[in-house]
């Protein structure tokens, strides 16, 4: 079975800011938000890894995005980490045009954390009510 981590590191060596193999089946790769679409496309289309979900987290340094992919044949979970530093107007290019399965989670992160996904086909409310007040993002720490 293919060593997908080696292939990602080989293709995107200049773009990987940090890499951590926490265990044989848990790998975290830090990249710039701008590199997410190309890397995600490579992992999904070329390496045939399944997109699992995206985790968005509000941190003091910015909105941290984790894109989780699974190489089912090896059980490896590869998580791409991208930090969106601008918390006033956080935005990142959508991967929904590449991966249909990512449509819903980007809507969810948009409404719960306020990240704008550029190029998303349908950025509307998924979980929250349609007239939810603008600017109120429930998963942001300042909302507590």
């Amino acid at each position, binding site marked *: 079975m293919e060593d997908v981590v080696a292939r990602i590191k080989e293709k995107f060596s200049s773009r990987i800011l940090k890499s951590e193999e*926490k*265990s044989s*089946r*848990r790998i*975290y790769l830090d990249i710039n938000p701008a590199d997410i679409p190309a890397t995600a496309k490579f992992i999904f289309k070329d390496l045939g890894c*399944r*997109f*699992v*979900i995206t*985790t968005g*987290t509000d941190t003091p340094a910015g909105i941290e995005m*984790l894109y*989780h992919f*699974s190489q*089912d*044949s*090896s*059980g*490896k*979970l590869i*998580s791409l980490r991208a930090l969106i530093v601008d918390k006033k107007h956080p935005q990142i290019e959508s991967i929904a045009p590449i*991966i*249909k*399965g*990512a*449509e*819903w*989670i980007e809507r969810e992160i948009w409404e719960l954390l306020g990240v704008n996904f550029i190029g998303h086909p349908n950025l509307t*409310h*998924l*979980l*929250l*009510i349609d007239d939810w007040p603008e600017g109120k993002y*429930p*998963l942001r720490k300042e909302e507590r």
Partner: protein
Amino acid sequence: MSHKVVLPIGPYHPLQEEPEFFRLYVEGEKVVDIDIVIGYMHRGIEELSEHKHFDQVAFLVERICGICSTSHPFAYVNAVEDLAGIAVPERALYIRTIIAELERIHSHLLWLGLAGHFIGYNTVWMWAWRYREPVLDCFEVISGNRNHYAMMKIGGVRRDIRDEDIPVIKKTLDEVSRAVDMFKGAVMDDPVIQARLKGIGILTRQQAIDWCVEGPTARASGLNIDVRQDDPYGAYDRVDWNVIVQKDGDIFAKTVVRILEMHESVRIIRQCLDKMPKGEIDANVKDIPPGEGIGRVEAPRGECFHYVRSDGTNRPIRHKIRAPSYMNVASNKVAAVGGTISDATITLAAVDPCYCCTERVAVLDKNNGNSRIMNGWDLIKLSQEKTEQLKKVIGQWKI
């Protein structure tokens, strides 16, 4: 066909189990598009998790679902154990596996019954749910509860399986085995059921990949993926069992996967009961260090994924939860399109969503722009009527 224009009232109804809303666009009888509207059960659990300490979170996430209630705690404790590098005692791994597989059996039986009801086979419904009872009794013997068994704990399990309980479990497995054999014959061989489910609600292999589905929904479309096999946890790599894969991607294939998986669950539990060593069931974890971890399990509906981040205090600072139905329900955007309104209920139910039946469905005729509100019962009735028509043509079978 003319439809009246009706103002939608909303997806909540006192008599329905769980609320959700589908808007079907039809041309005549054929479904040409579907809007899926969710969020009515959004309870802010990821947020709540940050206000509970690590042990409490296991109880919180157990209540995400009543049918697959152990899947979320199992994935959660796996995530924290991944974060902190905790080694779980052997006996606890086997107990966890037994609990998870018993749950798979009763969850699949529940689905089988519902599917039977939707297509008008109420006998299947009664039988399937009748054979759930001994499994739920088993849970009561082990944990004190028929649902929400509170067995998963970071570092182990909360209760042991006593030697005197093992004959009860084994007897239940014998009953379930006989029931599954009966369903194989009566359900899978029935020509009317085959006519009703074969070629219906197809999700092709490529669509299954594009929509990132998992679980029986993916395996019925030819994808050999199962977390128990791919990223083993519990005791799954210590026992022999098979991943069930079918290739047609239709509702019949999904039915076959679930029926045959129950046989595999029985096999797994029997081996676990025999191989389970004596010993500790709890690693007695006190503190969780800073870090992040990912845990996943193969729930009855597919991959249940939890991500947990800790800063060294006694609560998670981020807890991401992704239930299997999140991906699988979205795939109805393609699977439910192209079929007829009478097939809509069974198609939407075929991914075994974590809600039982369509609450409110708006049917919009694209040709004349008229819309009509049908509730879950209207659609089930249409589905059952289709079966009656087929029975007239093909002839009544065993049930």
